[in-house]
């Protein structure tokens, strides 16, 4: 960038008068500014290292009334500056805090509108990655999605995001760094947002899970929609926002909340009644972006085509290879046992293998003096231990396949399933082999062998 152009950009940047700094965090600085004509805007200063200019350029071409408009984009040393439309109104978080949880119809309407808005982003290969109640503004015309500061264009060749950002409690597990984010990450966030709207509680509230399980707050059909949308495994979620919206509508019909197809205009208007016209000189903090606990994950994701209902082929993602068949259902377990029993059997298997190794060594050392004893006891005992150990290994495999949370720590660190498996067993096997060798060496040294 030549010096004169930079000076012009700096002068242009200074033409915006700062009204109020709204937020500051790892994703940048958000300010409420106004230009020389008095028009109000939101200016975001995004650090150059995490800014995605291509995503913002695409956003500027989007003219959806549910998504905040991008006014202009320019670069200054070390940062990308994006000037967006100033949207007046309360955030959804403030609305719920002030008025309590939304009704089921209101919450459904909000989420359906947001699903349509997010679908527009996905059609442009953009993933929002920061859908949260603070980034949804309640206006007279309906909810509006703002703060696309960490939005990204999905790249199919990327295995994982390069930086992680998001709002804790609404960011999908893959945003913590072990895989790319995609449309399903936004589906996850929308599911959490729906839960927030119905319970009035944030995910970090200790009563959140209890409130979610309460039938009066969250009816079972809607809860099932939320649970599926917020599944840990992306392939187990709804694969697109239209799918989520459709499922939500079906759930609401099952509850008898919708008398006819489509969204009732009266029900939709009930949500917009509380949108306040704020004084332009005294803006609310509706534009505030709260990153509670910034996560470091920059994921690039190829969202599936919005027109296609078929699941995306995730065979290129090593951590999701188990579900690479594209079937968005939980794998079938081999043993219908409680999780605790499976873990107990798996642990016992390690012990049995250890017994087998020690007994084998002892029999090999002392059994030469009593062949009958060896034939009788040795074979029976060691065979039993070996068989039990093998059975426990099978249980461990089943546990790994069917309960990803059993290995959640390793998975979150981005380790491949096969490596996780090897690590669990290799340590035990190596230890037992060393014990065996030690016994043999001691026996050899003391001339126990005849």
């Amino acid at each position, binding site marked *: 960038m030549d010096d004169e152009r*930079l000076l012009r950009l700096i002068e242009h940047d*200074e033409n915006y008068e700062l009204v109020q700094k709204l937020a500051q965090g790892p994703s940048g600085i958000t300010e409420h500014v106004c230009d020389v004509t008095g028009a109000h805007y939101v200016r975001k200063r995004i650090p150059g290292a995490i800014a995605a200019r291509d995503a913002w350029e695409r956003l500027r071409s989007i003219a959806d009334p549910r998504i905040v408009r991008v006014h202009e984009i320019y670069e200054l040393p*070390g940062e990308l500056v994006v000037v967006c439309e100033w949207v007046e109104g309360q955030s959804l978080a403030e609305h719920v805090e002030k008025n309590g949880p939304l009704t089921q119809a209101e919450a459904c309407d909000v989420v359906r509108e947001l699903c349509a808005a997010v679908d527009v982003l996905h059609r442009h290969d953009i993933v929002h990655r920061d859908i949260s109640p603070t980034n949804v503004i309640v206006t007279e015309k309906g909810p509006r999605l703002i703060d696309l500061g960490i939005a990204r264009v999905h790249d199919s060749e990327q295995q994982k995001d390069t930086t992680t950002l998001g709002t804790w409690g609404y960011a999908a597990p893959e945003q913590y760094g072990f895989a790319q984010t995609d449309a399903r990450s936004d589906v996850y966030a929308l599911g959490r947002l729906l839960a927030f709207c119905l319970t009035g509680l944030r995910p970090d509230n200790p009563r959140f899970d209890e409130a979610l399980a309460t039938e009066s707050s969250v009816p079972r059909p809607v809860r099932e929609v939320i649970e599926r949308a917020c599944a840990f495994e992306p392939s187990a979620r709804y694969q697109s926002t239209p799918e989520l919206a459709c499922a939500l509508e079906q759930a609401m019909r099952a509850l008898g909340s919708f008398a006819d197809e489509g969204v009732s205009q009266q029900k939709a208007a009930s949500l917009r009644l509380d949108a306040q016209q704020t004084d332009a000189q005294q803006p609310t903090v509706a534009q505030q972006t709260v990153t509670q606990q910034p996560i470091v994950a920059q994921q690039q994701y190829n969202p599936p085509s919005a027109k296609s209902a078929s699941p995306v082929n995730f065979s290129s993602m090593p951590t999701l290879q188990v579900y690479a068949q594209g079937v968005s259902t939980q794998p079938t377990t081999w043993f219908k046992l409680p999780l605790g029993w499976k873990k107990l059997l798996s642990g016992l298997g390690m012990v049995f293998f250890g017994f087998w190794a020690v007994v084998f060594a002892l029999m090999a050392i002392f059994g030469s003096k009593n062949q009958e004893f060896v034939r009788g006891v040795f074979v029976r005992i060691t065979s039993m231990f070996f068989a039990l150990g093998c059975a426990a290994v099978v249980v461990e495999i089943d546990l790994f396949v069917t309960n990803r949370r059993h290995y959640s720590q390793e998975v979150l660190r981005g380790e491949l399933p096969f490596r996780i498996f090897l690590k669990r067993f290799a340590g035990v096997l190596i230890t037992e082999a060393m014990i065996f060798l030690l016994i043999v060496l001691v026996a050899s040294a003391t001339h126990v062998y005849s």
Partner: protein
Amino acid sequence: MVGTWDELIDSDYELSELLERVVLDARSLKEWLRDYLEAHGLTKSKVVRESRLNQTFAYQIMAGTRRASRDKLIQLAFGMHMNVAATNDMLERAELSALRTSCARDIVIAYCLHHQYNLSTCDDMLWRRGMSTLEQLKEGVGRTSRRTFYARPGA
């Protein structure tokens, strides 16, 4: 209560009372520069232009994303028309040594800051006295032609 070290040490207050009375200012260099610009009605573009620093570098100094050497910050001080006290404050916030009364070069710089001379005049004064200038020009580039006619003065 804002005072010098001598005043603070000679005061009769207990330590806890002293800490309560002292006006603390823990602003970073970036915050301090921002407040200075706002208080004096200066714009970044004007400061960048008059400091004759590389525009990108100057902007990054004010944004707090780059660290500058002492001479570069003094250049910035000339661009912001600072006095000696403000310059020393800025240098200390950047964890650099302030202008010292025992250093001839610093005295020349302070003299120029006090009389609101511009950067070129200060560099000329330094050059005439055989001292290194603030603005380091590349060989054969920029305004060296004028200086080549200056014979370096004797010690």
